[in-house]
């Protein structure tokens, strides 16, 4: 006798899947603001959601979980940048060749991207976090929620972070 399994209704997304689908693009955007490379940003986002799954197995509409993944994207992105800079430094010490020389403007443009990432990494963590979150498109209210600060503080933190980054960049590019 053949037994048929009862027909299953199409599965609706689990709680975590819904959360993932709602927040993954935003987390990739935030990570991209730090690492500047879409593949690396997606790797960072994967790491963030692997950690989030353990921490919030059923996040539902938890504002806390949503805030956590956004801030974690900045922190994990900064860690990834530091790791890649260490690798580049090792390769240079080992005598690996750098990029072939191109037009001067290109070299400057590339150096500038790296310098921005480095400068972000040198800022205090809260400063780089507020800066990346706001410039990846989050509103002041969303930044306030993600960082657990009053909305009135966001403008002040952002202003200081921008002034600090500008100074860091001026210092880094000064001949």
């Amino acid at each position, binding site marked *: 006798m053949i037994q048929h399994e009862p027909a299953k209704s199409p599965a609706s997304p689990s709680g975590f899947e819904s959360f993932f689908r709602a927040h993954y693009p935003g987390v990739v955007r935030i990570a991209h603001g730090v690492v500047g490379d879409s593949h690396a940003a997606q790797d960072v986002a994967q790491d963030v959601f692997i950690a989030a799954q353990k921490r919030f197995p059923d996040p539902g509409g938890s504002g806390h979980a949503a805030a956590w993944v956004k801030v974690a994207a900045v922190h994990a992105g900064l860690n990834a940048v530091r790791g890649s800079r260490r690798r580049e430094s090792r390769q240079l010490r080992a005598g690996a060749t750098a990029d072939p020389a191109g*037009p001067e403007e290109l070299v400057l443009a590339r150096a500038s991207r790296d310098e921005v990432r480095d400068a972000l990494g040198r800022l205090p963590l809260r400063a780089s976090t507020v800066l990346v979150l706001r410039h990846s498109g989050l509103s002041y209210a969303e930044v306030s929620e993600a960082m657990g600060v009053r909305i009135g503080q966001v403008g002040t933190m952002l202003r200081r972070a921008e002034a600090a980054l500008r100074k860091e960049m001026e210092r880094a590019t000064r001949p």
Partner: protein
Amino acid sequence: MRHVPDGTLRRLVDEPLAVADGAAEHVSRCGRCRRRGELVVRDAAAVAALVSRPQPVPDVDLAWSRLQSQPAASSARTHALRRFHARRSWRLVGVPVPSTAVLAACAVLVAGVTVATVLTTLPGPARVNPVQAVPTDFQAIADAAGLEGSGVIGGFPTPSGSLALPFGALHWSSSGHARSVASIAAANAATGLALRLPGALPAGVGALQQILVQPEVTATVAFDAGAGATLAGTSLVVTAGPAVLVEYGSSLGSLGLPSLAVFAMAKPVASSTSATSARLAAFLLSRPGLPVGLAQEIRLLGDLGTSLPVPATSGADVSQVDIAGSPGILVTEASGAATGVIWEDRAGVIHAALGLLDQEDILNVANQLG
């Protein structure tokens, strides 16, 4: 009222409606706050320019399946391999971005060759150089040249025709429309080029879809008084093509999009009745409406007789490469989803390979063609 705090000045830049009316009124009346506000705006704009980048459009379905397949513990090697495969498939599945990117890359190539033909006379580019351009630049170029709405940008609409420009008249003629041929041998016979197809195709690239042949086109710009006294009465003749475009489908057949395109064209030749290339370049680069940054970058390239400017979309990663002994450039679209290589071989044929591929794969294709 007390002076407006820094945080409020900053929020006025981004979310002015969220700030009490009194603050904005105070800033408008108080010189000190206005000056502080200008500094805030300056820093905000400078930082935005530094950190803002084109936004990636990730494939959420693929990312979700990738997350689900993530084992609790895995060796570093299998972890690295999984990431590698996931990246490759993301390039092929993330259709909306790559398809746009490939179209943009083709537009970039056409625009680059157009710029080169107009600005380059003799003896032909020895170097290929990228210049930063965004899609609106192409519109601006069309507007500056008086080509807006003419259908000329992106290919001439008819085998022969003419068009009035603000600074003269453009006439073009060719032996016919682009047509499809059955084999690369037929394409070579029709164009006189000696092209071959890549013997080994990268994973993800499907069957050959079509081979198109574009006959040689000769375009003449006759400058009139609108071009100024030094150019009036002179003419510029540009001969481009013949050209061959080969398109491959995707191994994910249902996508119906080309995953690899290979383009080759005899180097365009331009000649002028009396104007020097420097004078022509100076005139074209001074056209009102031409993006200032783009014009400046082209000027920085120096002698356009030995340099082929190829516009690269803003945010794209560009590096110099060597294809079978010829210098070229490798352009990787900002999301990393599409890549292209453009070079000129020793016989003076301009080649391009564009695809939804990673850098290693597209260079492998290019080296088989070079």
